[in-house]
């Protein structure tokens, strides 16, 4: 529906007499303006992609903030060595593992990485020799670095959603995806009670701790277990271990009507 109308004028207003006043809804951008907008938008997109396309890998931490990996913060310095691929963090090291929702603190953290040589040795394949015939040098590139071990030393504390472990030393093995916490007294605390031993294994994939070797506990436990995934018979096999079955609450008797 065309809502245009002619204005009626006289004298000097005659020039405006033939002007058409269109309704606001009829004021649409012309093809030229739309084309201009499209060209501008396309240019902006192109400009944005070309400016963001930094040479990979670029030294930018923006992309790292959204990762699901491991975040490590320390107060003192970090030593990074290429010849022996390792990273050493010192003083008040804090680690946040976002995959398993685990938080860890320690005094010193050492990360070692697999080289091509160690990887080939583990897969029983012949190492690739370089021009000089030195397999070690040929395999020392860490362009495809994978984590091998993590060693946490000094006042180790690991916290998960519902469990907490205190120990002296923790070793993470990437091949098994487990972390073994050791020490003179390793304390494992959860809602089910508190356990004490010398060795606790943390299954990173499942986020579960379990005690190994001589292990005692105090607290509520599920019938048949000591609350930490350790069967009473296994714990009782330890030399200096209190029998968990004696301290745990007895299994509830079935109700009879």
């Amino acid at each position, binding site marked *: 529906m065309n809502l245009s109308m002619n204005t009626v004028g006289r004298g000097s207003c005659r020039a405006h007499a033939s002007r058409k006043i269109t309704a606001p809804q009829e004021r649409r951008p012309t093809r030229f303006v739309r084309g201009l907008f499209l060209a501008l938008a396309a240019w902006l997109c192109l400009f944005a992609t070309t400016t963001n396309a930094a040479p990979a890998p670029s030294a930018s931490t923006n992309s790292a903030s959204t990762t699901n990996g*491991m975040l490590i913060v320390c107060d003192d310095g970090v030593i990074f060595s290429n010849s022996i691929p390792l990273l050493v963090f010192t003083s008040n090291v804090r680690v946040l593992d976002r995959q398993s929702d685990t938080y860890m603190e320690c005094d010193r953290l050492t990360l070692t*990485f697999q080289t*091509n040589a160690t990887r080939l040795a583990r897969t029983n394949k012949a190492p690739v020799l370089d021009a000089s015939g030195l397999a070690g040098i040929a395999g020392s590139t860490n362009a*495809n*670095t994978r984590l091998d071990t993590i060693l946490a030393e000094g006042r180790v504390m690991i916290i998960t959603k519902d469990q907490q472990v205190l120990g002296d030393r923790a070793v993470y093995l990437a091949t098994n995806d487990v972390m073994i916490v050791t020490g003179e007294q390793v304390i494992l605390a959860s809602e089910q009670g508190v356990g004490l031993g010398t060795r606790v294994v943390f299954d990173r994939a499942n986020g579960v701790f379990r005690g190994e070797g001589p292990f005692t506990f105090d607290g509520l436990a599920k019938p048949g277990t000591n609350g930490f995934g350790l069967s009473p018979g296994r714990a009782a096999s330890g030399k200096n271990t209190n029998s968990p079955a004696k301290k745990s609450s007895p299994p509830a008797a079935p109700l009879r009507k």
Partner: protein
Amino acid sequence: MKTRSFQWGRWLTVAVLLAVAMVARAQLSQRIKGKNFTFLEYYEPEAGVKSQTNRIKNILRGAEGQSLTADLIRIRQMRLENYPPAGPGTNLIAQSPEAWFDKEAGVITSTTRLDLVTSGGQIVMRGESGFLYLMEKSALIVSNRVRTVIQDAALKGKKP
């Protein structure tokens, strides 16, 4: 007699001018600024290897380089790339707004921020209080308040 003394005076003047020019040139060379600074370091050749082409070990770049002393160079917008002796890729890429490079000792130091990427982006590190890099050993010591992110691929053993 007069001409002989005049000749001596002339030679003395020339000698003084030469000395002044040499000192000025030395001082001038110590304050030289240059854009697009680049320094290359190569791996040492292996003994007994025929026709080995030395690979690049370190590339040090900067938007601007200023020589403070004979061996000390101040670099702005520094970018350091360390390459492995064999194989593709870089070991690390480090960037800093400002750094000092000691050519004689092969040491790069800084007191400012450091952004580091290693292992094809699997490990990203940022230090806020400076760093020390030993070029010969390819060892980097990042100073206090360091924040590191390790990607999942490095933890799970996946290829990047």
